[in-house]
């Protein structure tokens, strides 16, 4: 596949690996904040190529993982209503709420449908005028333009039976929350390449300066991730704290301006609760007042609902990089992908699920030689 296969070239991987080993003279801790990058790192075994003194942590980059329990509950409540068609991305279906997940609502007769795109949910609304169609709008900035377009198109078409259950989160406030956590050990970040494709990377300069951390906008293929790590290591070794763009074939500094304008038409920044972090101010997107008719929380009267949260799940520590999944006492025993305690185990990109699937058998020998 063009622009994909070239960035998975085995020989180039060897080159970059050697370069990282040569460049890293001291221990460094780098965090990536993107479920897609977590997945790629686990799938290709990239972290095992790195020298032992480079630690790669997985931050709160999985929108599925950070969706609060409360919102899952609102989703299951709405989905359980007769006459509703509840549309969602596939990975949300298994995330546990307080008492059930969307899969169980489906098992009990709810019309819960997996869609690939929010625009497909709009089509379903057009085709089913007598049913209420709700789309579970989860995601970081990458998904916001598509979700905004769905609502925008719905309003242009005068649809009255379409609404969004919004759970949008923003990356820069999450980076700050990680850096502000007592015990934080993150020294550099790989910034999510597709989030930055939309938003550009101007927002990261103040963070890099204030906290003195290098931030490298990075892509998703093995070569991208290794090059991103190399660029971080070089900055760290030289005592620099700059913003750089590794993923230049997709990311421009100003980002995608039409997409940002579309988002601004439909969404506004507001407070958002993050699973594992609690509320982070100005960290989410919600629908603008002009789009209130498309807000499922208002339409279905669930806005006031709050969930009691409790338990032994340590996904909060994992998301902050304060703990690795294996350090959680429940990991692999009471908490597995079949009966997860928290979203980091349910979502394919959750750090716990990734570790469970790819690392729990890891040979004691440690790092791999190519």
């Amino acid at each position, binding site marked *: 596949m063009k622009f994909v296969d070239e960035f998975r070239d085995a020989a180039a991987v060897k080159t970059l690996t050697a370069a990282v080993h040569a460049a890293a003279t001291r221990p460094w801790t780098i965090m990536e904040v993107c479920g897609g990058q977590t997945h790629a790192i686990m799938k290709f075994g990239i972290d095992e190529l790195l020298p032992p003194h480079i630690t790669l942590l997985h931050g709160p980059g999985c929108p599925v993982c950070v969706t609060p329990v409360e919102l*899952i509950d609102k989703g299951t409540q709405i989905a359980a209503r007769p006459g509703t068609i509840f549309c969602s991305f596939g990975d949300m279906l298994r995330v*546990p709420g307080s008492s059930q997940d969307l899969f169980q609502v489906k098992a009990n007769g709810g019309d819960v449908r997996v869609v690939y795109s929010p625009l497909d949910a709009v089509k379903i609304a057009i085709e089913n005028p007598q049913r209420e169609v709700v789309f579970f709008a989860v995601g970081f900035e990458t998904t916001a333009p598509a979700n905004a377009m769905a609502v925008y198109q719905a309003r242009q078409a005068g649809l009255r039976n379409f609404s969004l259950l919004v759970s949008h989160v923003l990356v820069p406030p999450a980076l700050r929350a990680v850096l502000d956590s007592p015990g934080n050990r993150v020294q550099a970040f790989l910034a999510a390449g597709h989030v930055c494709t939309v938003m550009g990377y101007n927002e990261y300069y103040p963070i890099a300066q204030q906290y003195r951390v290098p931030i490298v906008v990075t892509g998703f293929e093995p070569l991208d991730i290794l090059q991103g790590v190399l660029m971080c290591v070089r900055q760290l070794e030289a005592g620099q704290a700059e913003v750089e763009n590794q993923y230049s074939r997709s990311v421009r500094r100003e980002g995608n301006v039409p997409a940002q304008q579309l988002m601004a038409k439909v969404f506004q920044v507001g407070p958002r609760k993050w699973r594992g972090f609690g509320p982070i101010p100005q960290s989410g997107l919600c629908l603008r007042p002009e789009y209130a008719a498309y807000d499922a929380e208002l339409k279905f009267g669930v806005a006031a609902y709050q969930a009691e949260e409790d338990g032994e799940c340590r996904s909060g520590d994992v998301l902050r990089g304060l703990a690795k999944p294996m350090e959680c006492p429940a990991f692999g025993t009471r908490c597995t992908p079949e009966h997860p305690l928290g979203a980091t185990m349910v979502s394919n990109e959750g750090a716990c699920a990734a570790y469970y699937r790819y690392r729990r058998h890891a040979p004691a020998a440690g790092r791999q030689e190519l």
Partner: protein
Amino acid sequence: MPEDKKFTLDCPLPINERPQIVLAHGGGGRMMHDLLERFVLPAFRNPHLESRHDGAVVEIGGARLAFTTDSYVVHPLFFPGGDIGSLAINGTVNDLAMCGAEPLYLSAGLIMEEGLPLDTMQRVLASMSRCAQAAGVQVVTGDTKVVDKGKGDGMFINTAGLGAVVASQSIGPGSVRPGDVILLSGDIGRHGIAIMMVREGLELESALESDCAPVAAPVLALLKAGIEVHCLRDLTRGGLATSLLEIAETAAVHIKIEEDRIPVEDNVKGACEILGFDPLYLANEGRFIAFVPATQVARALAVLRGHAVCSAAEVIGRVAAAPANLVALKTRIGTERVLDMLSGEQLPRIC
């Protein structure tokens, strides 16, 4: 929610007890295996079930027969490259072949939903007839039931099959040995993606068709050529990875495969990239793996490649003694990762 608390460890109450069957129980992954191990197998415990193979080999009056059954609940009923009828015939034919048997007689139970158009039923029957002829089997008995509207998804089919065992040796995970080489009969993932393409909501267009096909002929050719086949497994739900994991666990061996050697067709690759699927876990309906001793690989490959359905057959890995019960994949960039069972079905992801 206390506002001064910065480090809330948000977490729901654990859902350990699932009092209901959910879709994942039929997905071919870990949950289905757990269901079988905890409830189904104990209900019927006997030595035949312990072999955990695609079918059972039984002896009746001195004749060794293979016996198998499968139910088909695919939705939609018709998809590129096949339909529920062709699946129902070929699936059972293939399971018999995996026991080293020549498929001979099938039964067919039809469960139809009230309101199913007669025309649909006829198309399915015609398809079953064609496939039975092509596979050289006869449907000698069957049953028909109708259920109320809303209780049946159109049509369900169960087929059971009997075959005459040709192989003199026992074929199954119990015969797998360290040093065995693993052959894969062709490219993977077509059926899984073909189904995805017509499923509501995903709307993918391509020329891709299901790989639904009978594989009894190449298997029998292997046996007749005197190849010492240790194990056969057709790759259905859960894909190549699940079949390898099942065999590694049952036989208590280590399996190592190489990503570079596993054929995946371009369209399947593209669809997997869009949806975030791993082709190793996608369903197939006309592909199998064969475990043969290293000394017989060249001959086995030559036999397989002589059949159109196996023309792309490849060596994909080998068996070792340790670490047991693990399947390791050498990725295309040269790193190694351990494969695991999926919990349930793969879902399209956004991350």
